């Protein structure tokens, strides 16, 4: 299987690649539109801020490429947030393949931002991407902004507010948490993305 890892400038690119290697898959890091269009699976990683993330995709000429992909796409962390219409972080227009605006997690008593650490997952229904992941299992989150719960939300998590932890709309998937750093839960999600979802 040909897995393209978009070279979006995010710092977790290495970690995502190692996680795929632990599953026996090899991913190639690329910013070449043709290589991305040809791949069987495409992953958009990302750690950082929304505005520089979008600027980088525009610079590389990848905005329309990512928008028009037909094969399964997985956005991770910031990569998931970029799938939405816009982000409050830097007030930036994003890829817009999922409806909704990403907003800052509000501070509240006992609620620290960034939301950093292991938090419970609450699936809202069955999906091939979630096979073997049970309600209450925990995944590793690191973020200050969060996507709204919509009809595309497969899993929610709560940190003061409830937000989208895993999303899917057609062939577009996203995980707010870091599957590459979420022990067996993360490995399961990646494995499902590689082999469980329809191409």
């Amino acid at each position, binding site marked *: 299987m040909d897995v393209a890892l978009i070279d979006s400038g995010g*710092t977790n690119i290495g970690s995502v690649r190692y996680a795929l290697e*632990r599953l026996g898959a090899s991913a190639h890091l690329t910013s070449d539109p043709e290589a991305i269009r040809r791949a069987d699976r495409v992953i958009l990683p990302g750690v950082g801020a929304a505005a520089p993330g979008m600027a980088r995709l525009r610079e590389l000429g990848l905005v329309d490429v990512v928008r028009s992909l037909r094969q399964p796409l997985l956005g991770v962390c910031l990569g998931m947030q970029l799938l939405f219409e816009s982000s409050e972080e830097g007030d930036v227009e994003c890829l817009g393949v999922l409806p909704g605006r990403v907003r800052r997690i509000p501070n509240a008593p006992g609620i620290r931002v960034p939301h*950093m650490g292991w938090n419970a997952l609450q699936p809202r229904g069955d999906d091939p991407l979630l096979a073997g992941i049970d309600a209450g299992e925990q995944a590793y989150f690191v973020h200050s902004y969060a996507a709204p719960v919509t009809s595309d939300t497969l899993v929610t998590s709560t940190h003061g507010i409830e937000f989208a932890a895993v999303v899917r709309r057609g062939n577009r998937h996203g995980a707010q948490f870091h599957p590459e750093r979420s022990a067996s839960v993360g490995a399961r999600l990646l494995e499902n993305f590689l082999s469980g979802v329809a191409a």
Partner: protein
Amino acid sequence: MLSRRIIPCLDVRDGRVVKGVRFRDHVDMGDIVQLAERYRDEGADELVFYDITASPQDRVVDRDWVERVARAIDIPFCVAGGIRSVQDARAILYAGADKVSINTPALLRPALVTELADAFGVQCVVVGVDSLRDEDGEWRVRQFTGDPSRTQALASRTLEWIEQAQALGAGEIVLNCMGSDGVRTGYDLEQLRAARAVCHVPLIASGGAGAIEHFDTVFREADVDGALAASVFHSGTVPIPALKQALSAAGVAVRR
């Protein structure tokens, strides 16, 4: 609900894990990757690697072992030691670390915190604070703590520095209470409570863990987000599975 984090800290010197008492007299504890894998298997939530000689020796962390750790484990880890620039941090983060922690270089040049936050986001930027109470009763920050001959007291008050670091862009604070480090009599609750009151980002307690009840106490009484320890985990005095079982039974949210 967000779990409280249990964080083994691995002090690294010349590519090996070492442990000292009160930041001195280091003994060899083993290979970095082997220890990282052991803690992953035991249920550690995160690991911190402090290259304790990097800052005093004016050199950056060796990225080879960072990459070996990143390939081996599937839990997050943070790397500290001698990171002085965006370029230094980028090398460590691209090698696979999830966060970088800066201590002495942030004191020497506070703008570094902002530069790192702008480049990678605040969630990647941890500020480590080494703090000791002075005879006048004030907690003040120390620098160059990796080398006793160079450790210096600063005029900065610990609580003021914690506030400043957050304003500059720190996404997490690790407070190393040097007075209790390595002596296993419990975390410095008074200092951690005072830090908690001014810290609105995640706060990690460090220094003093000696028994399971110390973790329970620091989570309940100082409301810290994570507890870091070294010797009690390395020696097996506090096995992580037993620790998490005890915390869970006591009603502290932990990942099982």
